[in-house]
Structures are given as structure tokens and as C-alpha cells.
């Protein structure tokens, strides 16, 4: 949304701006994680940029990038200038288990979004004063917006702390019979499943679905072979 800010950043940081993209009018610059705070400080304090308004901070999970040796997460920062009315998005890449530096000392508004990113993606922020979970509860296991977190995963229920021996039971079983999501990330990351939905998957020749005729045929052949191998029952002797 502002090419001026991008050129200003390029002249200031040179090669340290790793990439710039303009898609549908949205300007995004990519920086390394070690330059994250420095670029953010510059954007806030430089008079030509003057990004005084904090808009949003979020993350995106790309688990398939990890197999290529790339960092797994994207941290996205959205900013706006009140005086200049321009906007920019800054991206950096974070590895799994890597700690990102906090931006709360630059914009106080980053406090809750960073807590949310920690809650949902498990990216820890160094220097943040209050890294508690924010939307979920402390006993929650895992970080739900990671792609390898199954959407229908059941969480262990927390025992009542005051009544001894009381356990709450889930209202339904873990298996509800029908796949809940169109993408099975567990299968996809294991390289067994590239499809997006069962109907499309069958068209592109995906390797495994419940209704795949090849699987069904193979299973049928197995059963037939087992039946054939069994000796016929002897006729009862009279």
C-alpha cells in the first residue's frame, strides 16, 4: 500500500530486506528474525514512515517448509501510519521452538497478539512480560492453529480439584465416524495424501481414500485368497 516505505526501507537496510512483494496492492517486506526489532523500531521512529498505529500481529504455519530446511512459521506484522495514511506488512520466518523477540516495547498493542500467537502456534516471545495463554486455558495440550493439530482432537478433561476421584467424561467419543476436515494433515505430512478433498482426490489419483476402488479391490482379493486357501470342509461320513 505504500511503495515509498518499501524504497525507504531498502535504502536504509539494503540487503537485509530479503524480499519484497506486491500482491493486489499489499506491500510486504521480508526481513530476518535478527533484524525484526530493528526494522520495527525504524518503521515507528523514522519520520517518513511514522508507523504509529499498530494494526495486527499474527503467524502462519507452513509445516511443509520444514522438510526443505526452511523455518516453519511466518510472523506477520501489519502497521499503519496515522499521519501519512500508508500501510505495510512485515514478514519474518521463525523456526519451530525458536524464540522471537517481542515488540511490546515499541507498540504496547503487541501484548495480546503475541500472547495469542504463543497460545495458538507455540512461538515464544523473548522479553514479553506476561507470556500466559490468552484464549485457551493453562492445561490445554498443544497449539491448535498448527497444521499438525487435528481439528477433532479431544483434550484431556481436567479433574475437579476439590472432589477426590471425580472424573468428567467426554460427551462423545474421539472418533465420530466421519472425517471432520477436508485436509488430513497427518497423512499429508507423511507423504501419503496430497489431496484437498475426497472428491478431488479421486480425480487426481490420490493414494488412499475410504472409497478408493483399488483399495477395495485389493481387500476383496485378499479375502478371496484366504477363502481359496482354506481347504473345503470334508463331507460328513455316514
Amino acid at each position: 500500500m505504500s511503495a515509498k516505505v518499501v524504497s525507504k526501507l531498502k535504502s536504509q537496510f539494503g540487503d537485509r530486506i530479503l524480499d519484497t512483494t506486491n500482491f493486489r496492492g499489499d506491500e510486504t517486506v521480508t526481513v530476518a528474525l535478527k533484524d525484526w526489532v530493528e526494522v520495527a523500531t525504524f518503521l515507528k521512529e523514522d519520520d517518513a514512515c511514522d508507523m504509529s498505529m499498530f494494526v495486527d500481529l499474527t503467524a502462519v504455519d507452513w509445516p511443509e517448509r520444514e522438510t526443505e530446511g526452511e523455518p516453519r512459521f511466518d510472523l506477520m506484522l501489519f502497521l499503519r501510519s496515522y499521519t501519512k495514511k500508508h500501510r505495510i506488512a512485515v514478514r519474518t520466518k521463525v523456526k519451530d521452538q525458536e524464540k522471537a523477540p517481542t515488540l511490546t516495547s515499541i507498540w504496547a498493542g503487541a501484548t495480546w497478539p503475541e500472547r495469542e500467537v504463543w497460545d495458538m502456534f507455540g512461538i515464544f516471545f523473548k522479553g514479553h512480560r506476561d507470556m500466559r495463554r490468552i484464549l485457551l486455558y493453562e492445561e490445554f495440550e498443544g497449539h491448535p492453529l498448527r497444521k499438525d493439530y487435528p481439528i477433532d482432537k479431544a483434550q484431556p478433561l481436567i479433574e475437579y480439584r476439590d472432589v477426590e476421584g471425580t472424573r468428567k467424561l467426554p460427551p462423545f467419543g474421539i472418533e465420530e465416524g466421519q472425517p471432520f476436515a477436508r485436509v488430513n494433515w497427518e497423512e499429508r505430512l507423511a507423504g501419503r495424501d496430497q489431496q484437498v478433498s475426497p472428491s478431488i482426490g479421486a480425480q487426481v489419483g490420490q493414494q488412499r481414500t475410504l472409497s478408493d476402488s483399488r483399495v477395495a479391490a485389493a481387500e476383496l482379493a485378499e479375502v478371496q485368497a484366504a477363502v481359496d486357501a482354506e481347504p473345503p470342509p470334508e463331507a460328513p461320513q455316514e
Partner: protein
Amino acid sequence: MQPLDEVFEEEDGSFELPTNPMRLNMGPSHPAMHGTIRMVLDLDGETIENVDVQPGYLHRGFEKSCERGTWQQVFPYTDRLNYVSPMLNNIGFSLAVEKLLDIEVPERCQYYRVILGELSRITDHFTCNGATAMELGAFTPFLWLLKVREMVWGVLERESGARMTHSFGRIGGMAHPPTAGFKDWVMALIPEIERVLIETEALLARNRIFLDRMDGVGVLSQERALELGASGIVLRSTGIEYDVRKDHPYMVYDRFDFEVPVGCDGDNWDRFTLRQEEIRQSVRIIKQAIEQMPDEGPINVDDPRIILPEKNEVYNTIEATISHFKLVMEGVKPPKGAVYSFTEGGNGELGFYIISDGSGTPYRVRVRPPCWFNLQSSREMMIGDLMADIIPTFGSINMIGGECDR
């Protein structure tokens, strides 16, 4: 805090007893906390020394659920973000996907969206002002405002079929074209809205109790509001003129003559009056949009990859049947890429950061909820005030649980 063994006696001979801050738990089961927010307060007498605002009680996994189905299947979820003005969320999400697809809906649809959106904004502000007054003990304005809100929802129901959760937006258009009586019904609403605005102000604006609890309470400074990411009424009450409709016009908002009212103190009273004033501006926009809106013309974009074919054709031609099947089973397939699209929601900048991987399923849908940031800045408004001031302050930021916790 002083240790107890210290000498209490001051130099002038008076006594000052040492005090400890009291920790008090407020909510989530508190009527004014909407059942979704917990506040842990550190009180010095009745003054708030520190407050920890804890959201999350209404978290339903909106963003995770969106990664499950098709792009069209996100619309019912957006209804449940800000459930007082669902149409604005529908439109905001439609615009985001349309930006990703790089299409623009026909002009008639844009006017239609503007009118429906502004009606939703009116209901949003009515609800907030009415609820704020009710929480301070004034029940009459609440009922009067809700009476008119029901009338507005009546019109929206006639258009979309549902009172609140419309699911009326579509990628590349709307679910139905405007009904025959649409313009007349909207025009019939306007005198009612204007009348109830005057009545509310007559009831509240010179009410001593109401003024005492609103004026000068819950103050937020300009710099902090900007830094904390506040938007909408909360930001404008501090005197900052930022309205997405004016600063980054989308749809046909640049064709209307309207003003962005701003406050000066950033207190509850400013937020209350700004909502009243914004309803007036919304009425102004609606009047102009009704005049300019064409009566004839298409509502949806003409693209069989995006819009479902007519039912008549689906039942009679094989091409439309296939198109219908593919759209329902596979969904709209936006090109690979990521966009951040933002509109002015009921509470401020409602942003959608959406990523497509080229398939029919959203890769990531991030919603930037205005309430989230407004609630974050409410901590600053409350510290230093009295405990009873939490009720009007919390009421005037219009926290909507569905949007805040997603």
C-alpha cells in the same frame, strides 16, 4: 503498602492506617461482563490499582474451523463474530475473498451492501448505547432503542430471511437481489430512527446520574490509543480521525457526503455521543445510497467459477448441474497468495488476512477483531478509576464476545 510494624503516626500527629490492596474477581459470571470476560482487580479502597482482563471464555476456534471447509462455508462463521452486526462481517469477508480473486461486484450490489451494512451499524450502535444505559440503571432507553433495532432487523429479515445470523454475503455478490419493497421499507425506517435518537438524548443527555458516570470516566489518551491498536469509536473518541470508510474508501463510500465525528477527551461520554452521531451519519449515507442505487441490473458477478448458476438452469441443463456440483463440492478456488483486506466494522477496523494455496480450502483465515484491541486498551481506561466505573467503561467499548474470542 506499608509493613504492619511501622509507626502509624504521621509528623502532624494524625494517624494513617496501613492498607493492603484487595484482590477481587469480577466475572465471567457477572451481568455486565457479558459472561465472557473475567477481570482480576487489585483494589485500594474503591480505586482500581491494577486490573488483569482475561478474555477467552467464548473461544470456539473460528480460525481453525475456517481451514476445514470451502471458502463459502466461512460465511456462517463470520455471522457469529460480531453477532450484533453480522452483515458487516459478511461484507468484510466477501470483500477480502474478492480482493484475492481480483474481482469487483456490480455497482447495484455495492449500493445494496452499503445500505445493509449501514443498517447493521445502526443496530450495533443502538445495542451498545442501550446496553450501557441499562447497565447504569436506565431501562427505558434500552427498551426504546431495542424497539427500533427490532424494526431494522425486520427489514434485514425480509431481505435475508434471518433476523440476526443472515449468512447473506456471497463471494462475488449477495445471496438474493433486493426485494421489491426494499427501498420503501428502508425509507420508512429512517423517521423512526431519527425520532428515537432524539428521545434517547432527551432521556439521557441531561440526566445527572448518567452524566456523572459517563463524563470524564474511562479516559484514554491519543498516543496510547494509537499504540494499543484501538480503532473505531474508541480511537475516534480520543480525537483521532480514522475511519476506514473515509481514509481508505472501499465499495462506493467515496461517492457519499458524510462526516467522521471525533471526540476530544476519550471518555465514556464521548463514546456515547459519538455512537449517536454516527447513527445520524449512517442515516445520511443510507439516504444518499437509496437515491443513487439503480433499480435494475445484476447483483452478482458473471462468472460461473464463483457464482452458483440459477436453479432453473441447474435442473434443466447439464452444464449448470456440473457447475453447481463443482462449486458445492470443490468450492471457489482463489489463486495462490495472501491479502489483508479491511473494512469499518461496528467497532472499528475489521480486517481479514486470508491465504489461499490454490485449492478450494482456505489455508489460513485470520480475522483482526476490533474488539480484541479495544478490550486490550480498556485496561488503561480503568486503572485509577473507581470500581463502579468499570460498568460504564466496559459498556462503552462495546465488547462483543463472539468477535473478541472468536
